[in-house]
């Protein structure tokens, strides 16, 4: 549950009738009336734009944790170092795997599955499932991390189930740490997709699906040719927000594996932290942060295009 997750919540309101332009108060046509945006703007400039600018500067220096005086401008060295660094490439790969499994395949598909099952199920089952899935979403990140740590651990619940089903068990956090944290993120984040898709599905007129059914379309055909095309904008927005949220997951992985064993679940945020603080290479860590920020910014721009007409 991150900030970006709900960036679209307020959207329901303009539908109820936003303030019509021509009715806006026309009194006091001076710039002073814009004064109220000052506190927010100052905060954003000081604590958001400031750090981003500082980030862009530090990324080109060799700053270390120990002394500020020694920092000097090194051009693109940090980036060259990153792309030559096997650990960095490992992190990029793991981040891609993590995003693909947990956001695109996991949260998105499972969210859609839950939403479409809920549209057809009995009321009691629907609300029970909704409550549990949302509960997993609202729980603090660290608590979720601990819960899933016990779930996947060697003596944990998952292995117990596998043993019951006579399937081989293993120490998931050791053998497949990135898969374990990806599933943990699915557990924690699916509620958002579920809510988005529930809303989207409820907006599809019944007549459309019914007439397709009358025309003899099977359920897969209805899904591919009617449902999915009709909710494609929700799919786009949801994928974008999920991906952005997944890119910045730190606490969940930190609580479960701390990026380990070795670096086998070290996604980019963990790598960045590790370089900056455990290896004291602030400059290098910041360069990685800048790359992450740029990737995030690109995704945000796509999201902005999707949302354009809403502003």
């Amino acid at each position: 549950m991150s900030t970006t997750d709900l960036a679209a919540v307020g959207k329901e309101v303009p539908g109820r009738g936003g303030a019509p332009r021509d009715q806006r108060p026309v009194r006091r046509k001076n710039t002073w009336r814009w004064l109220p945006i000052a506190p927010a703007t100052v905060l954003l400039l000081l604590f958001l734009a400031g750090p981003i600018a500082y980030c862009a500067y530090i990324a080109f220096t060799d700053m270390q944790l120990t002394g500020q005086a020694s920092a000097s401008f090194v051009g693109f060295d940090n980036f060259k170092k990153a792309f030559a660094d096997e650990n960095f490439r490992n992190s990029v790969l793991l981040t891609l795997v993590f995003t693909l499994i947990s956001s695109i395949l996991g949260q998105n598909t499972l969210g859609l599955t839950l939403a479409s099952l809920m549209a057809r199920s009995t009321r009691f089952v629907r609300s029970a499932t909704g409550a549990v899935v949302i509960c997993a979403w609202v729980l603090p990140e660290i608590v979720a991390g601990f819960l899933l740590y016990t779930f996947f651990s060697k003596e944990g619940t998952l292995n117990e189930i596998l043993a019951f089903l006579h399937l081989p068990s293993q120490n998931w956090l050791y053998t497949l740490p990135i898969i374990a944290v990806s599933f943990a993120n699915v557990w924690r984040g699916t509620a958002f997709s579920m809510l988005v898709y529930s809303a989207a599905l409820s907006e599809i007129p019944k007549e459309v699906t019914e007439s397709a059914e009358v025309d003899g379309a099977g359920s897969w055909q209805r899904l591919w040719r009617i449902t999915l095309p009709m909710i494609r904008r929700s799919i786009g927005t949801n994928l974008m927000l999920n991906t952005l949220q997944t890119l910045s997951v730190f606490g969940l992985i930190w609580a479960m594996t701390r990026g380990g064993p070795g670096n086998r679940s070290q996604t980019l945020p963990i790598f960045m932290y590790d370089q900056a603080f455990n290896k004291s290479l602030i400059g290098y860590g910041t360069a990685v942060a800048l790359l992450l920020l740029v990737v995030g910014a690109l995704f945000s721009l796509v999201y902005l295009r999707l949302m354009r007409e809403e502003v």
Partner: protein
Amino acid sequence: MAAVSETPALSGTAAGTKATSGPAPRRRSLRPGPGLSRSTRQRLAADLGLLVLLGAFVLPLIWLLFASVDTDPSMKVAPPSGLTTENFSNVLTDEITFTPMLNSLVLCGTATLMTVTAAALAAYPLSRYKARFSRPYLLTILFSTCLPITAVMVPVYGLFVQVNLIDTMHGTIFFLATSQLPFAVWLMKNFMDGVPVALEEAAWTDGASWLQALTKVILPLMGPGFAVVTVYSFIQMWGNFFVPFMLLISPEQLPASVSIFTFFGNLGSIAFGELAAFSILYSTPVLLLYILISKRLGGGFTLGGAVKG
């Protein structure tokens, strides 16, 4: 073990009762032939599917509940071998629970107040006046809601060291408040658009200032929206781990999200019962707050129509 094997059985019985009760008889008369009607079969399949998924989602939560009252908790879901409240009484000390929770409250409470105040003030002109820069401004706000805050934490740490804000409550509060601000402004502006200007004009004619119009007319009218922004910001900050983890160092200042790590993070020698008990204590406030706003909006915090399809 027992609880695990119970899950399939549970879904089996639930589906079984469904088959006998449901609206099956009525449908059957419409559609002659043996067995259940098609829509009932579909509903049964959907219920069954959901129950399986529900089982997968609920297991970690059941572990939490069981382990917190178990005399000898393990890492797997199992009914308590003996009931005890000792886990709770062990963690209910100043050091483990009360101080970190109080820190969390001060940190998140103050930051939420700051976010909501700044957001309400900024949303007012953005919602009410027209200006050339308001659209770019809003687009920038929307853009910043998406930025991965995690990525800025290393430079923020560096910056805070230089300006002596590191390990201070107020520095952390400022940053936490700012990190939620773009989203709060965006949400607040959209909620404010829903309040008709006509009501405000009555206040104008009575000679009210913009601040009076905002606090006496608009904010009360957008009550639920205002509550959503407040509660949502608070929930986000309460669960935030990375920001206080980076910016606060002294143990006596740490909020619950980080202290849980200090006390229990030494993986391998965890007292699981106490960890579970503390997790419950720490999570309860946000769960209650969530229920509060979702009830208030009639389940409408389900982002009704949030993302247009």
